[in-house]
């Protein structure tokens, strides 16, 4: 009887190779699922970060290229700029505000633009506009940028009463 019991136990399948194989297969499938899930979530997070930086950059360029900033006369002496904007009330970019922005420290510029690594340039005819002998290029570039987000806006520049067409080029670098 004991021998027949032992034989019957040997017919049991709990610890047979096919059970172990099915368990291993199950764990592999779960592992693949987990890996896929993590990869998808990671790529979605990265895409959202880039999208968010682009939206912020577009808002910044709208404020710079289309509004006078706040206070509107922040290019005057002893007026602290709260929101940067390079235009006058007629929508022309004016050189006094570009010159005033040049005077700000780098930290002030990054705080106002809410971007750590950026490149901002005003061009006319493809060349950087020059005001008081200085080129209108403001930048702090990362030495090893990971992602570049370029935004360009067409603008009208009022320089000493002369109206010129130009571009506002704004680039944000991540990392």
């Amino acid at each position, binding site marked *: 009887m004991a021998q027949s019991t032992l034989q019957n136990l040997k*017919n049991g399948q709990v610890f047979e190779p096919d059970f172990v194989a099915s368990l291993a297969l*199950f764990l592999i499938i779960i592992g693949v699922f987990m890996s896929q899930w993590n990869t998808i979530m990671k790529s979605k997070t990265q895409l959202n970060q880039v999208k968010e930086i682009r939206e912020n950059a577009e*808002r910044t360029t709208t404020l710079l290229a289309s509004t006078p900033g*706040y206070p509107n006369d922040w290019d005057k002496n002893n007026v602290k700029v709260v929101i940067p904007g390079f235009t006058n009330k007629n929508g022309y970019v004016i050189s006094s505000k570009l010159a005033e922005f040049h005077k700000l420290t780098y930290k002030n510029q990054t705080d106002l633009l809410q971007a750590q690594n950026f490149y901002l340039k005003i061009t006319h005819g493809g060349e950087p506009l020059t005001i008081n002998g200085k080129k209108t290029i403001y930048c702090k570039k990362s030495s090893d940028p990971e992602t570049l987000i370029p935004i360009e806006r067409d603008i009208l520049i009022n320089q000493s009463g002369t109206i010129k067409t130009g571009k506002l080029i704004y680039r944000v670098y991540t990392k």
Partner: protein
Amino acid sequence: MGTNKRKGQVSIEFLLLLGLAMFALSIVLGFIATKQRKAIIYSNTKKADKIADDIAFQAEMALVMGKGYTRKFVLPARIGGKPYNVTVTQQHVVVQWKNQNLIQPTLYQGRELYFETQNQYRFKIINNGSVYITKP
């Protein structure tokens, strides 16, 4: 008698297998539920983030454009199925929903702005010397 023992062995094996299967399934379901919860929290946070960015921009534009500026805008009615409220203070936008909140920086400086989406998702921002957010 030997046949009865084989039947008894089969039922034990079946119960053991069923128990193992339920155990494995409970681990998998627990894992999936955790991941799903994180995904929902992330989705709600991204939604609140976008709302805060929109409000920050609306407030900044109203400030720079000056007196007489009005603009209507639309926001998502709910976050995570619940209404939410937004407060714009000096240089911060705070979005609160359920028992969570999100804070975003803004360049807006001025009167504190507050609104809820309880029965409303269309709003109007006005600058009549000070910036206000009202129903359209």
